[in-house]
C-alpha cells in the first residue's frame, strides 16, 4: 500500500476523485496565493489564518467527492468564498465601520510621504470596497473578487461558479454598478459632512 508521500503530485492537472494527495506539497505550493487572496479581502492576520485553514480543509473535501479540474482556481474560489463569508460575519457582528481599517503593521505605513491625505484616502477607499462587498449578493461578490482581485478570466470564473460566461458578465456588470453607487453615495455623504 502506498503512502501519501509516494503518490505522484500533479497539482495543476485534473485531480481524480478520492485520490490521496500530498497536501503538504499543495499547501506549500498554493499557500501564498490562498493567503494573499484571503489577506487582501480580510485585511488582518487572524482572519486570514482562519480562512487559510478553512480553504484547504474545504478543498480536501471537494477533492474527495468530485473531480477537480484546476486546483489553483478551486483554491482561489474557496478562499474568496470563505473570506467573503467572514467579511459578512464581521459586518454583522461589529458596527458598520471600515473593515480592516487599522493595519496591524504600523511600521509599514510610510511616514515621510508628501501627501498623507492621499494615503489616508487610498486606505479608506480600499476599506470601503471591502465593506461594500458584504452588501452584494454572494454570487456577485464572489464573481467580482475573482475577476478584479484575483484576475481570473470570465471563463475560469464561470467554470468555478458553475454558470455560463454570459451570466458571469451580467453578474460582474451588476456588481460593479452596485459598488459604484455605494461608493459614490458614501463619498457624497462625506463631502456633505465636510461642507456642513
Amino acid at each position, binding site marked *: 500500500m502506498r503512502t501519501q508521500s509516494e503518490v505522484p503530485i500533479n497539482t495543476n492537472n485534473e485531480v481524480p476523485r478520492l485520490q490521496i494527495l500530498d*497536501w503538504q506539497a499543495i*499547501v506549500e505550493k498554493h499557500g501564498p496565493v490562498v493567503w*494573499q487572496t484571503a489577506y487582501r479581502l480580510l485585511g488582518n492576520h487572524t482572519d486570514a489564518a482562519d480562512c487559510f485553514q478553512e480553504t*484547504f*480543509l474545504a478543498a480536501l473535501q471537494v477533492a474527495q467527492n468530485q473531480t477537480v479540474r484546476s486546483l489553483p482556481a478551486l483554491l482561489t474560489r474557496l478562499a474568496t468564498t470563505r473570506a467573503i463569508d467572514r467579511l459578512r460575519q464581521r459586518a454583522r457582528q461589529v458596527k458598520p465601520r471600515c473593515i480592516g481599517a487599522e493595519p496591524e503593521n504600523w511600521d509599514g505605513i510610510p511616514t515621510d510621504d508628501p501627501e498623507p491625505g492621499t494615503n489616508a484616502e487610498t486606505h479608506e477607499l*480600499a476599506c470601503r470596497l471591502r465593506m461594500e462587498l458584504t452588501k452584494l449578493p454572494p454570487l456577485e461578490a464572489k464573481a467580482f473578487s475573482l475577476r*478584479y*482581485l484575483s484576475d481570473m478570466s470570465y471563463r475560469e470564473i464561470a467554470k468555478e461558479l458553475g454558470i455560463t460566461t454570459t451570466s458571469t458578465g451580467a453578474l460582474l456588470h451588476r456588481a460593479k454598478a452596485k459598488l*459604484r453607487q455605494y461608493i459614490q453615495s458614501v463619498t457624497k455623504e462625506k463631502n456633505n459632512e465636510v461642507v456642513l
Partner: protein
Amino acid sequence: MKDNSDPLARAIENLKDQQVPDGPPQAVVDSTIQKLAEAAHQNKSLEPRRLSLLEKIRNTDNIIKLTTKIAAVAAVLVLAGYAIGRFTAPKPPDIRQLRDDLEQSLAARLIPTIRQDLLEETNRRLQFALALTSAELTEQYRGDLNRFAVQTLMASNTVTNHLLTQLIQSINATQTQDLRRVAAALNQIEMNRLKDKTQLATGIQTLAYQTEDEFVRTKQDVVRLLVSAKDAGPGPDAYESPTTPNERSKE
C-alpha cells in the same frame, strides 16, 4: 477600470496595491497541514472497505453453505416437533368438565373486565357531561358579561353625554358673560374717549382765546412802540443798539 475619476476603479486599484504578505506564516502552514492530515485520516477511516471479486465469491459460497446448514437444522427440528407432538398427544377431553372449567375461567376473567369497562364508561360520560356543563356555564358567563358590559357602556355614554351637555352650556354661559363684559368695557372706553376729546377741545379753545388776547396785546405794544419811536425822531444812536435784547424788551 483604469479611469482615475471612477471611485470604484480607484478603490479596486488601492485594494490590489495594498501591502499583502507574500505567504502565510510557517506556523499557519504547519497547523493547516496537521489539520489536513487529521481530516484525511478521519475520512479514510470512515470510508467503507471495498471487497475484491475473490472475497465476494468466497462470501457467496459461505452464504450457500450457511443456508444449507440452516435448512437442515430446520428440517430436523420440524421432524422432532412432529414426533414429540405425536407421542405426547392428550387424550379426548371430558366435555362437561371442559365446559365448567371454561365457564369458571370466563367468569373469572370477564367480570373484572366488565366492571372496569363500566367504570370507564361511567367516568367518560361524567366527564362529557361535566365538559358540557362547563361549556354551558362558560357561555352563560360570557353572555352575562357581555350584557353587563353593554349596559355599563350605555350608562357611561348617557352620563358622558349629560356631562358634555353641561360642559357646553357652562362654556356658552361663560362666553356670553365674557362678551357682555367686553362690550361693557368697550362702551366705557368709548365714553372715556369722547369725554377726553371734549375736554381736549375745550382746553385747546381756551388756549386759543388766551393766546389771541396776548397776541393782540403784543401787537398793540409794538404799534405803540413804533409810534413813540417815530415821534422821537432818529437820533445819532437810533440805528445802533447799545442795549441788550432784554433792555430793548423792557423799553
